[in-house]
């Protein structure tokens, strides 16, 4: 364990502090990802990229800062940004899931073409995985593409395509090789959302907001080189993306941030005159979750450290989503509880949500259930952990292949 700040790190810390002091006022509000970044957010993103506070370890030729991975540096940057309350940059599926996928299995041309615009926030992506009949059983996708004069011609229907209503591109899992069986018949295509034949319809969720979409594809044409890896490799590529999605969905930084918000809330709310943080029954729940958040936080640092050293993380990486989404849910449940009856007024459609503590927490609480379900429900996660992580045998008749080992 070597967490001491050497001179190099102290210098970085100073540098970041200086940046935040002089430029912090330019930061957009933190959060987001449910809207297209506005001008302010784009300008801020540009600044971060320039200084290497975003995409620090992505090669320069793809628009990153080109430094080797150093977990401590990332931790320092994240710490300074979050304690100053300024935005750490744009978070979306393109940046968190597609970019690392391309860097891992995409061609040089694809990286050169897409990584830069994506990390700059200029190109927004949505995920075309789930279909109405295949939520957990992704490889059963029915959306298919045939090849005709140098193009894939795509037909089918996707669901849960968050951001599809403002996205520029979709990464799409579909069936191209009809003779090759369930898993071997899939391909992973990059599809412009402006292509004729794409119809996006909003999907209202339990929160009352349209956070997702259904996307219908009818004879959508995509040039044949818009494929990641080769025809039939789609299941492999999709699993690379899913690996990054699992890490995104269990992100311990989000837990730390949310824990801090719950603590603030519990200092403010009171029940019959007593601040809820002083009510032992609630406080003990808070402390239990604090223990879980601390464990998750350090576990996250350990994973980063292993990644930096090129070590295998195995099951340790696979548990992140299952662990993180449940803790997040328990945190928002506690918040809802301490609000009591005062947490019941609910106005999810207004704009000034940030000040409406009750509505914000209720949305978070429901959205957390959505995150437990999304990106592979908890039972799917348990299968992945058990089978890929612990080497347990599969169900005898299930014919799913779980993709490449991590």
């Amino acid at each position, binding site marked *: 364990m070597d967490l001491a700040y050497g001179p190099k790190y102290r210098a970085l810390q100073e540098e970041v502090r200086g940046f935040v002091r002089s430029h912090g006022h330019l930061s957009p509000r933190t959060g987001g990802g449910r809207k297209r970044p506005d001008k302010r957010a784009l300008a801020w993103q540009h600044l971060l990229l320039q200084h290497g506070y975003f995409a620090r370890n992505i090669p320069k030729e793809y628009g990153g800062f080109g430094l080797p991975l150093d977990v401590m540096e990332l931790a320092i940057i994240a710490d300074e940004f979050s304690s100053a309350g300024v935005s750490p940059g744009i978070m979306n599926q393109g940046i968190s899931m597609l970019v690392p996928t391309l860097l891992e299995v995409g061609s040089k041309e694809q990286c050169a073409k897409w990584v830069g615009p994506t990390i700059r926030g200029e190109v927004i992506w949505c995920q075309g995985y789930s279909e109405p009949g295949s939520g957990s059983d992704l490889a059963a996708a029915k959306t298919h593409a045939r090849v005709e004069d140098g193009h894939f011609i795509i037909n089918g229907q996707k669901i849960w395509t968050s951001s599809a209503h403002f996205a520029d591109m979709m990464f799409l899992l579909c069936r191209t090789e009809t003779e090759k069986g369930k898993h071997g018949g899939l391909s992973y295509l990059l599809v412009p959302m402006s292509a004729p034949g794409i119809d996006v319809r909003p999907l*209202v*969720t339990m929160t009352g907001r349209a956070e997702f979409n259904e996307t219908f594809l009818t004879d959508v044409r995509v040039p044949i080189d818009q494929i990641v890896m080769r025809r039939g490799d789609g299941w492999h590529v999709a699993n690379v993306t899913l690996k990054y999605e699992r890490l995104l969905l269990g992100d311990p930084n989000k837990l730390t941030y949310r824990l801090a918000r719950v603590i603030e809330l519990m200092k403010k709310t009171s029940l019959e005159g007593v601040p809820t943080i002083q009510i032992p029954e609630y406080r003990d729940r808070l402390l239990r979750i604090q223990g879980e958040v601390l464990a998750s936080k350090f576990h996250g640092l350990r994973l980063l450290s292993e990644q930096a050293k090129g070590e295998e993380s195995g099951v340790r990486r696979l548990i992140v989503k299952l662990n993180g989404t449940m803790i997040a849910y328990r945190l928002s449940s506690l918040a809802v509880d301490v609000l*009591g*009856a*005062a947490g*019941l*007024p609910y106005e999810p459609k207004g704009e000034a949500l940030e000040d409406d503590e009750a509505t914000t927490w*209720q949305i978070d609480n429901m959205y957390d259930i959505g995150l437990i*379900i999304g990106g592979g429900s908890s039972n799917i996660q348990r299968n992945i952990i058990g089978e890929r992580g612990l080497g347990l045998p599969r169900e005898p008749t*299930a014919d799913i292949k779980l993709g490449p080992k991590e």
Partner: protein
Amino acid sequence: MEFGLSNEQWMLENSLRGLLEEKLSLERLRKVAEIGSGFDATLWEGLVAQGIVGLLVPERFGGSGLALLDAAVVAESLGYHVAPAPFPASVVMAPLALMSAGSEAQQAKWLPKIASGEVRISVAFAGGVGQTGEASVQLDGDQISGLLTGALDAGAASHVLVFLPDGRAALVDAHEMGVAIEMRGSLDRTRPVSSYELNDARAIILDAANDARVVAARVADAGRVVLAADTLGAAQSMFDRALAYSKERVQFNRVIGSFQGVKHTLADLVTMLEPCRALVWYAAHAQDAVPEEARILALQAKAHLGEVGREIARLTTEMHGGMGFTDLLGLHYWFKRVAFNRQMLGAPEHCRQEAAAVQGWLTV
């Protein structure tokens, strides 16, 4: 001896479920929820016609003179269908308060109107029931002023019954001078969350109670039992739907209910849920028949159903996969009803604390 419902109670439930199935399709529910007042005039007429509105009102005042157990049976059915109906306060707590604390004249004046559905009374507590939110009221002669939040069944109420911090109950006409109601969008669109602002409004004090605090606790406890029963119904409905879905939905070439992951969760949920019914029944029964156990049971039923309801609401939603998270199936109406009930009249932690106090395990 019998631990269970009587034939009459099963019949009551049956006819009510018939009414609810007929009147409350998912489309209808959506429409009423859009308004958010927690009131559906057609459904209310049906409830009046079935004599449910005067359930607790003595026969001599035009009601059915039934017991709280009957009210719990009704509440379970209403919860099963997330019925937008002002039941806990207007049909249970308010008449109970009048019967316990109202003079003969007050009872004679109000109870018949309650039984006929003409008067619908909202109930609000100004402290003392473990409810968060602001409340401060002052009584000056027969004039009442102050702010009340978290009023139950206020959506289409003609009156509000205010419980003062000392336990006394004051009835206020909602349309009088000095009464302003603010309805806010509620998480549970079948139940509004309302605040009243009172400015020297005229109040009728219910003045026949020997011990006002005892009456206030009794009314709160009756409300708790009925909310617990409502949660029981809503949770049962979610469970039934998840079970049915798990027998239909195919993933990986198998009906998902054949996977132990799903099967064992359903087994755990039914193991949690089924004993709740006996608890709710007995808690309701105890309010009328077993005074020495009444308080503990009301508080524990409310707390326990709050916890069980939350688990069932989440896990049955999860079992529907992404569809459970959408608006399409409407499952969320049930989810939110359970969440609403959990927080009203004291969340589980508060109810357990109060149950501890009742048992002498809490030195103040």
